[in-house]
């Protein structure tokens, strides 16, 4: 059943892909026998055939996950999205400390171990990547503002 649902969703996407290939894409003028639309057309036909086969004869796979596992996966994805969203505003160090600590706690790490891990990942990660390897990581709008006021007060 799971296989069928997934195939049906993919089939809808593929049909959308095919419609665009057959109607929208076209070159204003061309000399070659195959235009930009031909290859997507071929691919969409192959994909539709494969998906119809799966719909006709699905494998016997099930998502045998308990509710708590689903919850943990959902929480992990939410955390990852939040981490990505806060990456630039908070900056690498703070975002990583928060993400590392909360994620480790969620995966049932001991409380102080999780905090230590988060801080180590954020601070050591910054030192290693930015100071030693000279990679480009976000400092963070908040941190930047703080540093600026700090510098002004210093003057």
């Amino acid at each position, binding site marked *: 059943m799971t*296989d069928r649902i997934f195939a049906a969703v993919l089939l809808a996407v593929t049909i959308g892909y095919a419609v665009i290939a057959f109607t929208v894409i076209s*070159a204003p003028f061309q000399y070659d026998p195959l235009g930009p639309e031909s290859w*997507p057309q071929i691919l969409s036909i192959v994909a539709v055939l494969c998906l119809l086969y799966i719909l006709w004869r699905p494998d016997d796979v099930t998502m045998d996950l308990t509710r708590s596992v689903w919850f943990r996966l959902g929480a992990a994805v939410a955390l990852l999205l939040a981490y990505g969203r806060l990456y630039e505003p908070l900056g690498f160090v703070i975002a990583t400390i928060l993400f590392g600590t909360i994620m480790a706690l969620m995966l049932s790490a001991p409380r102080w171990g999780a905090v230590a891990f988060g801080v180590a990942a954020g601070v050591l990660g910054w030192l290693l990547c930015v100071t030693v390897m000279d990679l480009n990581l976000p400092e963070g709008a908040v941190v930047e503002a703080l540093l600026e006021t700090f510098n002004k007060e210093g003057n």
Partner: protein
Amino acid sequence: MDTVLSGLATGFAVALDPFNLMLVLVGCFLGTLIGALPGLGPINGVAILLPIAYGLGFQPEAALILLAGIYYGAEYGGRISSILLNVPGDAGAVMTTLDGNPMARNGEAGRALSLSAVASFVGGTFAVILMSLFAPALAKFAVTFGPADYVALMVFAFASLASLVGKSTVKTLLGATIGLMLATIGIDANTGVARYTFGIPDILAGIDFLIVVVGLFGMAELLSLVEHQARGTLKSLPVDRSFVRMADLAQTKWTIARASVIGFFIGILPGTGASVASAVAYGTEKRISDTHGTFGTGDVRGLAAPEAANNAAAGGSMVPMLTLGIPGSGTTAILLGALLMFNIQPGPMMFAQRPEVAWGLVASMYIGNVALLVINLPLVGLFARMLTIPQHYLTPLIAVLAFIGIYTIVGNPHDLFMITMLGVFGWFLRKLDFSLAPIILGFVLGGLFEDNLRRALSISGGDWGILVQNWKSVLLYLLALLVVLVPVVLARRARKVAAA
């Protein structure tokens, strides 16, 4: 022969440069560490570290040497978690658990680890030697390939992929097609027409290769780790002081030789890497030498065969990537993508045009194999410690590394969202028994496949007959047919024998 020798000389000059030498060692060491981590295999390791290696701004040959070191280092390290934990890092290490883990449970963990290190070394070295002999010749032959022959070659690659990789042929084919479809997003280079960009400027140049790789292999792996968290902690067997004996080597020398040959040639087949090679080598060895039914209970030959084979396959799968531009495995598909990011088109001309990259890589593999043996025999205890790293720290660490890599290269927070969503998609695909390697292979080869097809038809003025006008392409189509039919026939015959 002369070209091989002078090529090797060029290569060793590159690989022995102190900086590159250091990168070989660092790559091998990191690779072994990653391979030893339970659940992480070579493909995840290379995927997670690729953006960081790219961001460091190395020369192409240096970055490639580092990544290749990680690749076969991880192939080496995979045996540690297979033997001590009974948890293979990836499909290529599954066979190692069959006899490796029983040996460790019998109190011979040290012997199993050192024997498998020697077997890996022999398999890997054998593959590199064959590679340096064959690759230039194959490249010279491949120069004569026209667009139509390339189309046939791609069909052969996807046919062997569909028939040998994954549980379901249709799902593998669909996966490859999804990869090919992803590759069509962006501006068509021939006509300048935008395809599937929906007016989003970020994807006009196509979806970034790194985002697909890190999303499908890094983030999907992370979600699998989160999923399996609840199933209790893993218990590692201790490393004892036992060591490989001369008698073991004498007993396994033919096993290792056979498995190396099998591994190398299966590795060459496009799309089929270490997993198929180690399974075939183990099966063959069981048929030939398991006269007392000791395989599966800790037989040294059952351990040596898959280990020699998967390292030989890692070398073998480099051959089509370097000479034809067609990767031999999922991991080499990632290396191929890495080369393309450096504006190097792997293929028949690479040995002639960029000898420092092609031969430098080959030479670094000779050095890497020796380095791995030297690192692995005394330091195996250290690597075994990696097994006890708690999963609740490892999992967030993967995300931190993946984010650093993607942000450093692309510098756009929107891409962090993209890799997370691709990770969710990849996790679903894996739950439904899709294997992810075909997708990445399709994605990497998409442009080449389409270009050659269009060029072939331009040459013929729209006549599809050009695709079968040449003996080379006809031969490749026949081989493709063979690769698809042989497993079906064998399976049917096996069923008949079982029924009788």
